[in-house]
């Protein structure tokens, strides 16, 4: 059970305080309710590029990193398709430095042309490092665009193409900031060796006068139900054939999400999972295989991905995968198997919650989802899943017309 206090400023900024006096450190986590899904289809990759620009100086503070390092702090940030998160750890004595830095960049950025010019290049190198200069690096770009036709999950966080990043203009940066980086669209979590009273005072002082701005209303095109199986083939200079298949699953707060989460774990979550045991160990068709899902806020994807053993055809591999899915659709999983994935989930959550930084990030995430208290209900939601639920969900999820398949061939 994670304890926390919560209050909201008059400008709409939601604040959560989580005290843990066993550490000498404090954590400040600012999560903005904006991700790659909020981008213009002609300007993809912008939310992430913007995250880089948040370090290029704010209206009153020319350099973000230096004063933080001087205070013995460290920081980082990440962007997903759903949200953007910034976090700092520093000795709790220097907590106010974090308030000063984060509030000033919520107030306004410096909007520096040089910073934009450099970070465009940096992000292009990041794009190359992770997606172009790696074998199979283009798989998820492709698979997303096959599985999603309408919803902005059809592009990756890094962006659809380099050109979108190269074309970013300072006026786009400004517009994006004032649309999304307002107090109303943010959640501030302060955790560690802090008190609620102290955080209240500091929050009022540093964030209280930031204009509320306009509330961003999200109206994303929803993905229509898929009605026929989709297939695509690719040929690339990779050494081994690879097989990918994905299915549309329920959104993050749906009861079905928790069922699908356990279901993917039963199929491909470890060395005793079904796909690994059957296809890697017994039949020796794949050299590795995984089943997982994206954990998206809106309706996401459950996926299977694996590399084929040399000499195995794509059709053989797919048939063997389908046979395992068929078992999920026709026979109830045993109590032991279900208990195993529930125990794994319990343990995983416990290990995650060990670090104050991770707890702070989770509180912000659940608050953005709707309510920080959801964090403490997760175990019950998993516990409620029955073997009958798994059977029924398998039948819904693994319908052929709900699937997208990618045959990724090694060019001979």
């Amino acid at each position, binding site marked *: 059970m994670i304890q926390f206090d919560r209050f909201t400023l008059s400008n709409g900024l939601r604040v959560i305080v989580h005290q843990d006096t066993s550490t000498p*450190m404090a954590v400040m986590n600012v999560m903005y309710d904006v991700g790659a899904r909020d981008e213009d289809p002609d300007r993809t990759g912008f939310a992430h590029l913007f995250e880089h620009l948040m370090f290029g100086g704010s209206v009153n503070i020319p350099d973000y990193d230096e004063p933080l390092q001087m*205070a013995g702090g*460290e920081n980082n940030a990440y962007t997903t398709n759903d949200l953007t998160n910034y976090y700092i750890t520093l000795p709790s004595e220097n907590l106010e430095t974090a308030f000063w830095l984060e509030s000033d960049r919520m107030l306004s950025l410096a909007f520096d042309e040089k910073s934009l010019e450099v970070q465009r290049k940096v992000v292009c190198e990041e794009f190359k490092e992770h997606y172009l200069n790696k074998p199979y690096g283009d798989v998820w770009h492709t698979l997303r665009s096959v599985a999603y036709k309408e919803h902005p999950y059809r592009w990756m966080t890094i962006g659809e193409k380099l050109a979108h990043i190269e074309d970013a203009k300072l006026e786009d940066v400004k517009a994006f900031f004032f649309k999304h980086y307002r107090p109303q669209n943010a959640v501030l979590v302060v955790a560690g060796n802090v008190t609620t009273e102290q955080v209240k005072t500091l929050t009022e002082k540093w964030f209280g006068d930031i204009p509320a701005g306009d509330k961003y209303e999200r109206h994303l095109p929803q993905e229509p139900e898929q009605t026929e199986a989709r297939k695509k083939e690719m040929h690339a200079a990779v050494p081994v054939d690879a097989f990918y298949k994905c299915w549309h699953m329920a959104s993050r707060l749906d009861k079905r999400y928790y069922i699908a989460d356990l279901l993917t774990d039963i199929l491909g979550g470890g060395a005793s999972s079904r796909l690994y045991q059957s296809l890697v160990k017994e039949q020796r068709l794949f050299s590795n295989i995984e089943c997982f899902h994206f954990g998206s806020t809106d309706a996401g994807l459950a996926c299977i991905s694996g590399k084929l053993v040399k000499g195995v055809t794509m059709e053989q591999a797919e048939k063997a995968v389908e046979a395992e899915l068929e078992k999920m659709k026709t026979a109830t999983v045993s109590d032991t198997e279900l208990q195993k994935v529930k125990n794994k989930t319990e343990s995983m959550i416990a290990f995650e919650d060990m670090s104050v930084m991770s707890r702070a990030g989770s509180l912000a995430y659940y608050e953005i989802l709707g309510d920080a208290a959801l964090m403490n209900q997760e175990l019950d939601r998993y516990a409620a899943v029955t073997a009958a639920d798994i059977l029924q969900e398998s039948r819904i999820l693994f319908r052929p017309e709900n699937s997208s398949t990618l045959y990724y061939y090694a060019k001979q």
Partner: protein
Amino acid sequence: MPDRSIAPVIVDAVDFNPKLQPCEKWTLKNGVEVYSVNAGAEELMSLELVFYAGNWFEEKNLVAATTNFLLKNGTRQRNAFQINEHFEYYGAHLSRACYNETSTLSLHTLTKHVRELLPVVRELVTDAQMPEEELSIYQQNMKQRLKVNLRKADFVAGRLIDVYLFGEEHPYGRYTRDEDFDTLNREELLQFYRRYYQQGRFIIFAAGKLPSDLEALLNEYFGDLPTQPVTLPTHALQPATEKKYRISNDPDGVQGSIRIAREFPNRHHPDFIRVQTLNSLFGGFFGSRLMSNIREDKGYTYGIHSYLLNHIHDSAWMISTEAGKEVCEATIAEVYKEMKELREVAVDDEELSLVKNFMIGSILGDLDGPFQIIGRWKNLILNGLDDQYFYKSIETIKSITPQELQELANRYLVEKDFYELVVV
């Protein structure tokens, strides 16, 4: 409304005194050393068995790594699936890893389940069978994985720079070829297992919220195992004579993997601790010279880092980055320019104070929780050091002067001493 142009008053991080929580040391009936840190609020624990069974001891490439990998793949009582299922059923994570001098079996679990898991951990240490079928699957799949990795410039660069620094025959420089997998056989794995696991030398590290009867438990499952001292064979360094390399690995590559490195003594050399501060200033954190210049000013790369390798015998000082293909040579020139600057101009007090504050803050932050604390201890113990080293490191960070750093730069950051490699 606060005056935002003025930074809040801070306590200088160098005024903090990070403490390394002491670690309890005791021995099992058979003399096996146990180090434990009983701390943390959650009912979780880790237990790591560190064997002197790394590739330092093997006479043939891959024997140590394969033996370590197959520990989990079958005993007389349980096959690989049953072993994995047992740990996963209790939500536990059992991993194994093989390093240069040591190899590990490491368990992370909810404390309440540890009694169900220890008997099986014991089984892996006493009765692993390394079945032929498991070996054959491993060979097949690892060969495929190697093929994929060899397409990655960073993987290829990592192998080559180690060869230049240490030599192909040295455990730190040795790398795996496709054919090395083919010549492995079960008998030699079992032989290695008998010598270095069943009757070898191991140390136990435990951390987290530990059960009150931990001592009795560990004695029950590991206190009767035969153990004997191992002597580390000597391996001569054979560094390359040629210093500069340009390798073409992928005709379609859009980035180059750059590695610039020189040999460096191990932790017992007095300069090791002192150079940590110079390294931070040079390329050891986000505000470093390399990062500020090559990423934040020029935009040549997503990231550039320098670090001392975490090796027990001989270390090396490494600079590593992935940069746009067309700016690789410019990147290398900037790296040398930064070395020259550190040799010729003493760092000013403000920048040095920033680096020091960052380093102390980072140590404070890293000591968050029992697993991090035992990790520090493990590193000290395996390197033959104790907490005096930890406190000396902190003292050195606090007291080192611009003149000392400049002197170190003149000793070590000398262009001609560095190997230089680009793989595209």
